[in-house]
């Protein structure tokens, strides 16, 4: 929650997300990579991971423009 700050525009309150520091970002990514390494060692298929990535890419595309 500390990364959220409230901004007030003309009649339209919005949340402006601030990127955490580079150290925190890399630590977070390292944690996710560690989780990936842990789950990947069980030798499951690659397709569910790629499918999730495709779905997230599609959802994220709504933030364009």
């Amino acid at each position: 929650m500390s990364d959220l700050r409230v901004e007030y525009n003309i009649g339209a309150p919005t949340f402006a997300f601030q990127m955490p520091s580079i150290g925190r970002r890399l630590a977070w990514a390292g944690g996710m990579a560690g989780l990936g390494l842990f789950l990947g060692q069980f030798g499951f298929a690659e397709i569910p991971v790629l499918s999730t990535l495709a779905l997230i890419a599609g959802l994220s595309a709504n933030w364009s423009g």
Partner: protein
Amino acid sequence: MVGTMAPVVYGGEGSESRRRWLIAISLYIVSLLGAAIILGSLLGMVGEMLPLGSGRNTWGTALISLLSLLYALHELRAVRLPYPEFKRQVQAEWRYRFHPYITSMLFGVQLGLGHATYVTVASLYIVTVATVIYGSPLLGAILFGLFGLGRAGLLLPLAWHAQTYHKVYQISTSLIATKLLVHLCNGSVLAFSGAYLAATLYVKHLNF
């Protein structure tokens, strides 16, 4: 896109406006999904024809894993990597040139192709590369179908709430304000995917 596809854009208020909007957004979703699935299938067919050899699953997975990890750093704004894209949005003038239903379909096709406009996140590159490398039209259709589902699916609830210009403005500004969070999420998922693929590669192919 919320501002473009919101009911308020289709004029007036009430059930007639909502009915026109439902038709337009249905055409938009069908066109977007169709274009995405066709593109995915074509990319899979192209990959199938490329002489990538029998070891495509091995080195291909290694390449996808490496690209995922590198572009995770790009999404987290730790490094800057090549980011090829058409720097344009959908053709806004189509709204004045064509009937709203035709425009909805054209917008759907253009956005369903993924690479025809701005590429918001690098995850799309990884999905594209994976589709070509694995060389399967079916897999391509599934992956790009899911991309299309995500792209079209979120617009539906967002645009549904955009009943007034003020609401459109609120939703649009909220999307802009949370864009960095989207990059952070994508960076995390890419880091996870890259490491996961590296581990599966080791277990399945390299760990004799």
